[in-house]
């Protein structure tokens, strides 16, 4: 007998290239992933958490890196958001995780970004967060959200 409560979430990969100072890709990729997740019937609060992670992580790459890529993996149990960039890396990760600490230039502040809330927001919205950074080389950020976590 078929169990009606069973819901199959397929494996999906979404990928976006991020060029230096391509600030619009953050909002665009967040919107596109949001639509895909809505079509899959993912819960609204989870979609919003993922949209925030994507927006902030992609914006960080656009602001600080030379170029990078955003990948979103949708699996039955977990959604992973990954950004990999070639760029300056994060000199002091502990400081960067603190709310209010920012190294963003003035033009970014004028756009309404650079409040030093990006990484803290990502951490707050993730179930797991791993940041691997090398000064002068680049940064990889991996955030996971579990779909069935209470």
């Amino acid at each position: 007998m078929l169990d009606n409560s069973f819901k199959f979430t397929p494996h999906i990969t979404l990928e976006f290239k991020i060029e230096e100072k391509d600030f619009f890709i953050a909002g665009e990729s967040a919107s596109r992933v949001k639509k895909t997740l809505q079509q899959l019937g993912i819960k609204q609060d989870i979609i919003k958490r993922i949209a925030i992670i994507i927006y902030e992580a992609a914006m960080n790459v656009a602001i600080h890196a030379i170029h990078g890529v955003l990948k979103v993996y949708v699996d039955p149990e977990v959604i992973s958001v990954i950004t990999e960039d070639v760029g300056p890396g994060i000199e002091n990760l502990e400081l960067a995780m603190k709310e209010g600490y920012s190294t963003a230039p003035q033009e970014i502040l004028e756009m309404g970004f650079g409040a030093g809330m990006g990484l803290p927001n990502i951490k707050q919205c993730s179930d797991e967060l791993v940041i691997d950074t090398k000064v002068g080389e680049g940064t990889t950020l991996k955030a996971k959200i579990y779909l069935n976590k209470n």
Partner: protein
Amino acid sequence: MKLKDVALVLDADILCCEELLDREVKTCFACDMVSEMLLRVQSNTLLITSLTNAHVLHAALVMDALAVVFVGGKKPDGTVIKNAEHSGLPLMTTKKHIFECCGLLYKEGLRGYEQEQGIC
């Protein structure tokens, strides 16, 4: 209160989606930082801001904001208004500044974002 009441109280001009002004406003959030908007704006939240760039529109759409009020007489450019119209996000602009807008709406009974309602 409804969006049309907000427009009346703030003496605001409607920039798009006039047909959606019967929407009921549940909460209100005022800020000029996109990261804060992302974290605090929820469905049915009225966003008040002086930022008019396309990032604000993206943030408002991603977070399912109910409408956006631009303060200090500021107006976004035509592309932003067109995209908001297309997405069904009402935009309005008022000459009043952010403090006055918040005060007037609070006086009318509108309340802000509650910490415990946060999504993260």
